[in-house]
């Protein structure tokens, strides 16, 4: 058996390694994304004061700090049996929407977008932000930087430093909003709505107007017929921070809807010997290996998972875009991995619209920020990180110290899907042991769509070779190395 290793992966938020196993004919047998080990998380958390968890967990991962901050805060709400005040709920959601604005903006223009905007067949050296700016213009680059900064400033106004938020406390939030800050957020939100619409326009003009791209989105190697999961409000509209978890099946029907405290009744973790990360699946369907279809409990999370698991968006313009996406791509669910990019932009518009709605809410400057907490116990907090459903589960002792902490991060929820997407893309693109740069690009596209973030990984990557492919023979001897950089 031959092994192809792609290490490291370029433009991915985290350090993983892809290994593609070929059979004796040189065709793809299987593909795995390996995630590096994170040592000592349990020990690191045990014995800490519960209220430190919203401060510490964002720093462990570093890439989606606001998501971890509020997953931890919500877990503490549950541990202390307290419901946040109405104002606190609004302020949390407002800050959370700002996080989506900056995170989704970065992904489209810098990480995933280059594949589409510049083109999947373009040389690797051009498939980056500079290639994007060449297509859309330098002024757009300034707008990208500006609106990314707006998203960060919105989170900073409410939560302190964007990378180290501190405002979430059990039962509420530690800081309110004054009129001047509210006005400033309203102004930034208005601009962000226009920017999101502009970005959808870019996607429309460059991607959707090109039949080749639409055909690529709908092509077989990028289809994965899994269940979908996301958080919804009472109307089954997408919500990022509050609501029930809804799972829909391969025909788009509701499979189950559950409250965050019941996640263990529905979500299980499977272990494979070759990777440090676990694989989640639906308990009531079961683990059937790396397979899609209704018999396999694998589900998808993230922008596409959320839109598939919901019945619409709670803001008017995003809802129109939601309907347009499903109409264009053949109805709900859309199971094309590449549709994650479009779904992400629908969510960008929703986040901007929701920020504006909340900034204009007459109660947003109210000062009922916190409810008194009860006795410490056990609790679960679930939010939708930009990359997908994020679960924090803590057990506290009677003094409010952490006895046990478990996290299921978005990339874990999508891990089996990512491996299958890589395998399917590789199957269509690597034949008879023939591998070239263009083919590898397509394999990379299949997982980049998920915006994977290895919370358990380092940010430092090897310095000289952004992409290296090692090809081994069946005796694990290195046959050749192909690299670019």
């Amino acid at each position, binding site marked *: 058996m031959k092994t192809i290793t792609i290490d490291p992966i370029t433009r991915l938020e985290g350090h993983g390694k892809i290994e593609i196993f070929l059979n004796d004919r040189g065709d793809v047998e299987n593909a795995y994304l390996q995630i590096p080990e994170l040592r000592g998380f349990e020990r690191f958390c045990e014995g800490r004061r519960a209220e430190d968890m919203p401060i510490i967990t964002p720093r*462990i991962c570093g890439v989606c700090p606001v998501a971890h901050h509020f997953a931890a805060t919500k877990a503490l709400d549950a541990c202390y049996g307290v419901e946040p005040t109405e104002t606190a709920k609004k302020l949390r959601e407002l800050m959370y929407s700002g996080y989506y604005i900056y995170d989704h903006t970065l992904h489209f223009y810098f990480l995933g977008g280059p594949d589409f905007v510049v083109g999947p067949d373009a040389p690797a050296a051009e498939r980056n932000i500079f290639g994007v700016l060449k297509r859309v213009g330098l002024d757009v680059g300034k707008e990208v930087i500006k609106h990314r900064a707006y998203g960060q400033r919105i989170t900073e106004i409410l939560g302190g430093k964007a990378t180290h938020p501190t405002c979430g406390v059990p039962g509420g939030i530690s800081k309110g909003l004054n009129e001047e800050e509210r006005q400033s957020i309203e102004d930034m939100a208005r601009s962000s709505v226009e920017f999101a619409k502009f970005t959808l326009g870019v996607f429309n003009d460059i991607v959707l107007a090109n039949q080749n791209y639409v055909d690529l989105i709908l092509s077989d190697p990028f289809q994965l017929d899994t269940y979908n999961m996301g958080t919804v409000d009472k109307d089954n509209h997408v919500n990022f921070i509050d609501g029930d978890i809804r799972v829909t099946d391969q025909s788009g029907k509701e499979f189950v809807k559950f409250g965050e405290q019941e996640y263990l009744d529905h979500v299980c973790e499977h272990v494979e010997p070759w990777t440090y990360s676990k694989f989640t699946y639906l308990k009531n369907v079961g683990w059937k290996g790396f397979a899609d279809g209704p018999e396999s409990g694998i589900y998808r999370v993230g922008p596409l998972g959320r839109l598939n698991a919901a019945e619409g968006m709670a803001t008017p313009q995003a809802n129109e875009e939601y309907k347009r996406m499903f109409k264009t791509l053949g109805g709900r669910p859309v199971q094309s991995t590449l549709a994650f990019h479009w779904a992400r932009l629908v969510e960008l518009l929703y986040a901007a619209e929701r920020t504006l709605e909340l900034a204009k809410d007459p109660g947003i400057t109210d000062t009922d920020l916190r409810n008194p907490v009860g006795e410490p116990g056990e609790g679960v907090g679930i939010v939708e990180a930009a990359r997908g459903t994020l679960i924090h589960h803590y057990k506290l002792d009677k003094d409010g110290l952490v006895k046990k902490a478990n996290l299921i991060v978005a990339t874990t929820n999508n891990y089996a899907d990512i491996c299958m997407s890589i395998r399917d893309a590789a199957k269509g693109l690597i034949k008879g042991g023939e591998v070239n740069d263009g083919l590898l690009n397509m394999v990379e596209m299949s997982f980049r769509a998920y915006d994977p973030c290895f919370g358990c*990984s*380092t940010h*430092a*990557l090897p310095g000289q070779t952004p992409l290296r492919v090692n090809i081994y023979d069946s005796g694990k001897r290195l046959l050749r190395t192909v690299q670019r950089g």
Partner: protein
Amino acid sequence: MRTLVIGVGNLLRCDDGAGVHVVNRLKREAPHIDAEDAAMGSIEILEAMKGYDRVIIVDSVATGAEPGTVFRVNLTGGDQPPAIGSSHGVDLVTTLRLGVSLFPEEMPREQIIIGVEAGDITTLSEECTPPVEAAIRRVVEEIISLVG
């Protein structure tokens, strides 16, 4: 010459935090030097460096060299830019190139990257390994003598 030192990295991830450790020590030992903890900061560092004449960015790297090895790259002095990857979206060299493209008048004329080769980047720890700790010490002294 107005100089800004930026430290990038995750303080909880052992040697990965080298850049931030350097900044924290500069704040204590040489408070007259402008130093900023950018944490896992991405393209936002462009905003911080606007208006400075020189920027020194300290980050951890994993090139396979001996842990504690210090690399210096003067991007504006003709050095070949290294391909430093990044897990938090956009790598340093790309970020700096983008800054020069979009805001040519406001970017520092001199851009230096100091990379500290990491040993352990997977253990959750607020302390670095001994060779990286020694490298942090050297980098702090080097920056103080360079900036004055």
